[in-house]
């Protein structure tokens, strides 16, 4: 028997590669995932409740502290929204810089994008936390930078770089005939960009933009490492306030997991839905 050994001998024809997740999501509803998380917490609580001491069961502890923890979670969402806003504006500028006709601007934008895209988020966060002063004085006016503002800037940097790439990709995906048509109608380059190309790009940029947002929302917990009192910090404090019982760790962190899951999963489902709707063939 002759074996088809080297790839040169046979040319297997492959189908086009598509990274969309329609099948998974059709098979698994949002409710199922939520159910899974809840059951995980209940299971863990039940397992630790068997240790049989006269202390509040984990579920009761979570219910008791839920308002505080959810406030922390809201703070996380605030940070992520602000970081996204800052990052989107800066990323749009950087993305247009990537497409500039001037070589130096293009090179500088490219270098910035590469640096901020390839550095770990936590490292960038440390960078901003340690190297930005806690307040700036301009003409005797003190502008304070509390730690959470610095953390927001720290998250905005990678968002900026990632969004710049999204902008570049979207603009490149607009057919070149659009540019030529605009030029034929005597639009200036700036007008072409703002009034013709970018409006068409919004639709293409939306799904990846939402992907970045869900990444940022999940990354905001990193701020607890540098001392911003957001959900994870509060979780650790609640754990200490309840006497630091080791069996409380799993339910408390499970609750944090659940909050993020319930927030990010719908966003992810919606992104997949939009991706399918905007799919160009």
């Amino acid at each position, binding site marked *: 028997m002759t074996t088809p050994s080297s790839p040169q001998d046979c040319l297997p024809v492959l189908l*086009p590669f598509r990274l969309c997740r329609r099948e998974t999501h059709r098979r698994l509803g949002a409710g199922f995932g939520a159910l899974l998380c809840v059951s995980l917490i209940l299971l863990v609580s039940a397992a630790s409740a068997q240790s049989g001491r006269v202390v509040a069961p984990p579920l009761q502890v979570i219910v008791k502290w839920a308002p505080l923890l959810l406030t922390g979670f809201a703070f996380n969402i605030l940070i992520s929204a602000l970081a996204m806003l800052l990052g989107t504006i800066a990323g749009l500028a950087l993305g247009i810089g990537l497409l500039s006709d001037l070589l130096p601007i293009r090179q500088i934008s490219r270098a910035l994008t590469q640096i901020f895209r390839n550095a770990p988020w936590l490292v960038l966060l440390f960078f901003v936390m340690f190297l930005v002063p806690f307040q700036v004085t301009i003409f005797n006016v003190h502008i304070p930078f509390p730690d959470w503002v610095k953390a927001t800037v720290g998250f905005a940097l990678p968002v900026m770089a990632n969004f710049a790439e999204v902008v570049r990709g979207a603009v490149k995906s607009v057919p070149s005939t659009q540019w030529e048509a605009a030029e034929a109608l005597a639009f200036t380059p700036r007008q072409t960009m703002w009034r013709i190309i970018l409006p068409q790009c919004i639709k293409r940029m939306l799904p990846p933009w939402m992907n970045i947002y869900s990444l940022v929302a999940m990354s905001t917990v990193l701020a607890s490492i540098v001392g911003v009192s957001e959900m994870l910090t509060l979780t650790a404090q609640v754990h200490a306030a309840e006497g630091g019982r080791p069996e409380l760790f799993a339910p408390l962190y499970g609750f944090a997991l659940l909050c993020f899951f319930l927030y990010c*999963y719908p966003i992810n489902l919606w992104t997949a839905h939009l991706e399918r709707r905007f799919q160009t063939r």
Partner: protein
Amino acid sequence: MDAIPDWFQRLYESTGFNFSVFYDPYDWNRYVDGVKMTLILSVSTILLSLILGAAGALIQSSPSRLLRGSVNAFVVVFRNTPPLVQLFFFYFGLATMLPATESATGMREPLLNNVAWAIISLSLFAAAFNVEIFRSGIEAVPKTTVEAAESLGYTRFKAYCHIVLPLAIRVCLPALNNNLVNLLKTTTLAYAIAVPETLYALKQIWSESQNVMEMMILLLATYGILVGLLVWLMHRWERAMHIRGYNR
């Protein structure tokens, strides 16, 4: 031999840029150990996540609904929760429930230490993404190829290992490349549970020597080089696996 330490010592004395790792052997050793730990973490998590991802993609095409559902649930849960919280859940939550032994001094000695938990947690996180990537690669393999394998008497597992997966990997390498780079960057999270990797080592150094700026630059440069190395290796692999006649 001493040219480099001398140069950095002189740089410090003349300009105030204190790259202490390059002339202080104690700091140098800590830095090298940190980079080694980052390498250990990233190589083991990359390998483990690839194996788990391939296994998950195989199970996703299994006839059993229960198995398929559980892999899907795993993917959905791990993709939509922050890796740091996962890490804490594993390290603090699950580790305290596992049985532990006592050391000679009577201290509690857990079954798995923080490095092991970091590897497990980060691998599971990356594996959730890898399952999706492999699955989309497998979907690119035509049904007729699988049918041909079946008619040659391959079992489902053998066909997967010898025919489907090798083809799928070639198709999904660019996406895999992205995810593995991301995984390398995510290993910094191990800092949070005191795994002495690069960030942790440099943080110690800058707390002692008060040279935050210089060590930050070194940190960025280190990760830049590590990511560059990984990308270079993946591109070489991509070229070695290239199928002639497909895709240019």
